């Protein structure tokens, strides 16, 4: 358990769930809140390490990003792409109307 203050509460869980389009049952919310606080508390222990001389790190492997040349090597697989679509028509995905 963390000795830090809890930073996630039920409204925060509601917000994250809404942003992630997750439907979380009311009964699970308190448990989930506790879990998230535990995870954050665990990670917060890292703050005790002195990192003043350490550069920020986006990857631990030390590999470089591989590059590919600009060639068309893929595509023309409409059938595969649309295969899992609940609805499609004349090559398009069909979804409930979304309009701004």
């Amino acid at each position: 358990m963390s000795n830090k203050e809890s930073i996630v509460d039920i409204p925060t869980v509601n917000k994250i769930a809404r942003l992630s389009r997750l439907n979380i049952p009311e009964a699970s919310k308190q448990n989930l809140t506790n879990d998230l606080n535990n995870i954050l508390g665990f990670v917060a222990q890292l703050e005790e390490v002195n990192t003043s001389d350490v550069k920020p790190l986006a990857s631990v492997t030390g590999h470089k990003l591989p590059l590919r040349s600009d060639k068309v090597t893929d595509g023309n697989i409409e059938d595969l792409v649309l295969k899992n679509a609940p609805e499609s028509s004349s090559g398009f995905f069909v979804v409930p109307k979304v309009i701004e």
Partner: protein
Amino acid sequence: MNESINLKPGQINGETGIWEMVIGLEIHAQILSKSKLFSGASASFGAEANSNVSLVDAAMPGMLPVINEFCVEQAVKTGLALNAKINNVSIFDRKNYFYADLPQGYQISQFTKPIVGEGEIIIDLDDGLQTTIGIERLHLEQDAGKSLHDQHPSKSYIDLNRTGVALMEIVSKPDIRSPQEAGAYVKKIRSILRYVGACDGNMEEGSLRADCNVSVRKSGEEFGTRCEIKNLNSVRFIIQAIQSEAERQVEILEDGGKINQETRLFDTSTGETRSMRSKEDAHDYRYFPDPDLLPLEFSDSWVQKIRETLPELPDLLKKRLVTDFSITPYDASILVEEKDYVDFYEKAANGKDGKLTANWMITELFGALKKENISLSNSPISPENLGQLIALISDGTISGKIAKDVFAEMMISKKSPSDIVKEKGLEQVSDDTEILKLIDKVISENEDKVKDYLCGKDKLFGFFVGQVMKLSQGKANPGIVNKLLKEKLK
């Protein structure tokens, strides 16, 4: 309120005094690559729905993005052309939001560490003045798919062909102070992109589009709250949208209201902006580094290699044209707007009077092409023929007035000017004895007017010149006519 106040562009004279605009632009430029930023599907325009889609673009589980080297080069090349700092290490982040045309549920973009940092460009204003606009950053990101809302009453149709196509987002500093400056800025960025070859700059097809951030303030005050106008796809709309948005904000503030920071759309039919029906969380993108992509790294020597491939850019080219051809900076700025203008001009003006060539190209040729709605690349008048026409004027073979007739004929028949001049017998008459004959005829037919002239009615001189020119069917050399008439009428 002072009614006679002279407002500068970008100023609004409100009830409480003069307001000024603060504008920043985000330009999205589609990179001219064959394949997408992170997949090998084609990036071409106008294919069958969902045919240019790979399983990576469709965000199937387990697919991994691999970056396109050409797109990285174009971003660096553009950054160099914007006099900007190139970041040898940059990071890709996920920008999370839900929309039907975004199968990943996030856009791969660059948030904290973009590939290109701060830079600046010089923009040319209509009055011949220039001003410098700062560049905040340039980053690489994926385009989204396309939604069609007019195919069905209750459904949207989704085409993912554009999903994952490479975009550069170029963000300006809030240095722009008027809609006109914003227009000039977009034109300059478009021109640089086309010179570099990174983007075709085609605003109609959407390969270049802009979001405008607009706020207003009283001179010297802090920045006000801004609104963002999304997805403008022409310079004219950018200018209209900014003007109307700034006026809307002044009205709200002067009525004692507050500006809500929000995203707005420009309605081209009303010429006004309106609020997008957006949700409260719309801007909570929860960016984080994309774990599928390592940091993008390259060496200084690789950047140097790209620098060596940069073409002569508009600002330097402009200076060179002014020096080499003795034309005005203003004419030069028009000629460098497009690379093919410059190419045409340099061919036409080769060994000719540069100033005269620029005048004829900008006024006559551009005017005629615009009237006929023809692009310069399809001009019926070739650069060589325009150059020949300039030579005929310069060496006195034809007068400027006759040249206009020849030019009109060239537009129609595509013939060379010397052929037209020969066929129609339009050579200018510069021979003294020929012209003296004409002068004698005019004098003998207008004896009373000659008397009046000799008694001091100086204004009649123009009448005699006109009569001689008319008699020569416009072919007499006006300079020589003037000289000989003066001697004759002493």
